[in-house]
């Protein structure tokens, strides 16, 4: 294995280990991992609201992606604009350090293709554990602090949850 190959393997192990730690604690359930290519690993598990989640790790770009995390989000709707603002605000210095995403260590972008929102997190400075932890924290907050608290009707519509 080349030096680059060994480094890549270390990255993948760190990311997988950080995700598996959630599975060991029972936060992620029905956890599975598949290696789609030498540089691309995919993780599937059940988590919030017992929904299935998919996370893709790309070694080359050091990115963690939650593909199609949220369906049916109109980009210019109140929800779409609010989501963008909420994600941006996670890096605000007004948040306490333990709640804040440090852009020097993790950059967050999200795409909206045909209403399907994907979240892409690029880990910088080899801060893999930090990156995974903050990525999980961000998704957790999107579901609980943003959607459940402010857009409960979206959760019902998009994920077929009971309106009560």
């Amino acid at each position, binding site marked *: 294995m080349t030096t680059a190959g060994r480094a890549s393997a270390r990255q993948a192990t760190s990311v997988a280990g950080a995700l598996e730690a959630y599975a060991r604690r029972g936060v992620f359930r029905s956890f599975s991992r598949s290696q789609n290519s030498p540089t691309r690993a995919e993780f599937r598990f059940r988590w919030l609201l017992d929904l299935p989640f998919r996370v893709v790790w790309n070694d080359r770009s050091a990115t963690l992606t939650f593909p199609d995390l949220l369906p049916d989000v109109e980009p210019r709707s109140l929800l779409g604009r609010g989501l963008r603002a909420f994600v941006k605000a996670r890096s605000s210095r007004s948040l306490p350090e333990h709640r804040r995403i440090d852009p020097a260590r993790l950059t967050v972008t999200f795409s909206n293709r045909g209403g399907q929102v994907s979240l892409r997190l690029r880990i910088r400075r080899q801060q893999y554990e930090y990156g995974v932890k903050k990525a*999980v924290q961000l998704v957790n907050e999107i579901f*609980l*602090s943003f959607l*459940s608290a402010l857009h409960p*009707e979206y959760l019902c519509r998009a994920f077929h949850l009971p309106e009560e």
Partner: protein
Amino acid sequence: MPGNSKHRSRRQFLNQSLGAASAVAAVAGSAGRAAAAPVAAIRVPDLIPSSLAAPVKPANFPMRGAQVFARVCKEEGLAALFCCPGNYEVINAICDEGIPAYGGRTEGSMCAAADAFIRVTGQVAACSGTEGPGFTNMIMNIAAANAARTPLLVLASNKRMSEDDAERGIQTVYQQPTTEGMKKYGKRLIDPNRIHEYAAYAFRQLKTGVPRPVHLDFPGEISGARFKDASELRYYYDKARYRTDSRPHPDPKLIRQLADRIRKAQRPILVASTGVFYSRAWEPLLRLAEKADIAVVESGCSRGHFSDGHRISASTAPGALMSADLVILVGQYSMPNVGEFHFSADAAYARIDPDAGDIGRNMPIDLGIVSDERAAIEALFEAVAPARRDAWAAELAAERKKFEDENAEYYKIGRSYTDAVHPAVIAKELSDFLYRGRLPKEQTTVVSGGFGIARYTRRWLRAFRPGQICNGAYQYGAVGPDCGYAVGVGASVQLGAGPQAAYKGAPIVAITGDAGFAYSGMELETMSKYRIPVVLIVYNNNAWGVGSPNLGRASHLYVFQENLRYEKVAEALGGRGEYVARPEEFRPALERAYEMAARERVPAVLNCQAKREYWFRDQYPPGMLGKVEPGCMAYAH
């Protein structure tokens, strides 16, 4: 028992009353032909105060089965009975023992009343109904009590066993299978000689472990059995011998582990839920929280076991929950699943519960401790190191302020809608009246009911002492029982039961919606009859709590006629009422209603005219609000 006035049945009572009514009608009929007779005022008949003041008649041998049972209820401290006629011998015997009793208009609402009484006092109460229809009328509210983990004693008469399967007469039903899944314990009593034994079964279950309803049904042979002396009863002995008051205590090693986790945590939080209230652990909880600077957030079917006004309360700081790094769930009987409580995925979880079989259900735990809640909190107090977490306290304070600012913004928007009363106006101005006016903020006990309106009122209601808020739709989500809950909470304050003692006689406030009012609004008559002062706020948005603006051809299923006058229902039932159509009218009407309730000891309804479109965010922001649990908004867990 023909001729025995003590055991008159409803039919015998009605026969006598109908005779008298016919005579009155005959006179009125002849007078009516001449001129319109003045309409008699609604009044409380002398029979009510006179029977309430009648001397207590404790039973002694020779006794009937119902009296044996009632005597156990008295000895066990049954705090109140809520019922409709039926199960005559049992309810009459309970009254004779001097246990406070309330007779209402439907068995279902009386079941809710007993549930709510328990939720704000922590004392066991009972509901009762007749066999068949009376019993099945209680079902929704037995289920609600079960979901809330209420130690509710459900009593019902039943047909004689000798008539089993015969469909002789009316009202045949098998009761126990009907309450399957809604109770902790149930029994159809079949051996008269064992009635004392099964009363003991009931109280053993009601007073130990994780509470839930106990359902006993009394076939005619049981309640009517006669016993000359104690020798005719089997298993007849004192409660000191048939149950114990001892409680499971925690493993000291696990308490040390938890104390160590608390020491290492930067932002620990304790979720004080139903079990904290029932184990009366609020004082030890306060000592523990203050010693180690552990934030406390409430959940459960009642609120106030940790004051919202405390420096380290997180109940009105929803934004702080995600910061907690250690979550200690105490007496959280209705367990959330992952993602239902707003905590970080990195937070460690400890759970303290009397039931080992429940620890680890739904939510993975890092440390489980089997214990009575109070015992564990007291042990933890001894084990924790004193600590100050000023940064954590400052974050809590900042998040409380942020929440208040958010509420203020909702109020500002809601107040700008002038053609009807927005829920934010009701919530904020009610809150100002209860906690920032001339009333002591600890005084008023509130039934926090309704569906959509509750998404607003919960944000503004505060609890400063145990049992101050009855969380109406907790877990089961029934909005219909609200007026029944108001009877129970009102009765608890009228009697000064448990934590309500210091506020004995004060008016209470109850909130419901127009949908909920339909299920139990007739209980305004019960409140009026017993002179229970209740300010009942009805959020009238002309519809069920529907979040979607367009339901097409099905739309008519979701709406009512508009501008219905629920306050007139109150007036017709002996209460008072006001129609509130504009936001500026709400506060003055609230003050008048409160004064009237306090002065005249009657219920007063504020029918607040809203509109269903208030739930549609694009038309009327902020629309239907979401929620954050645990804390003041919690009702699912």
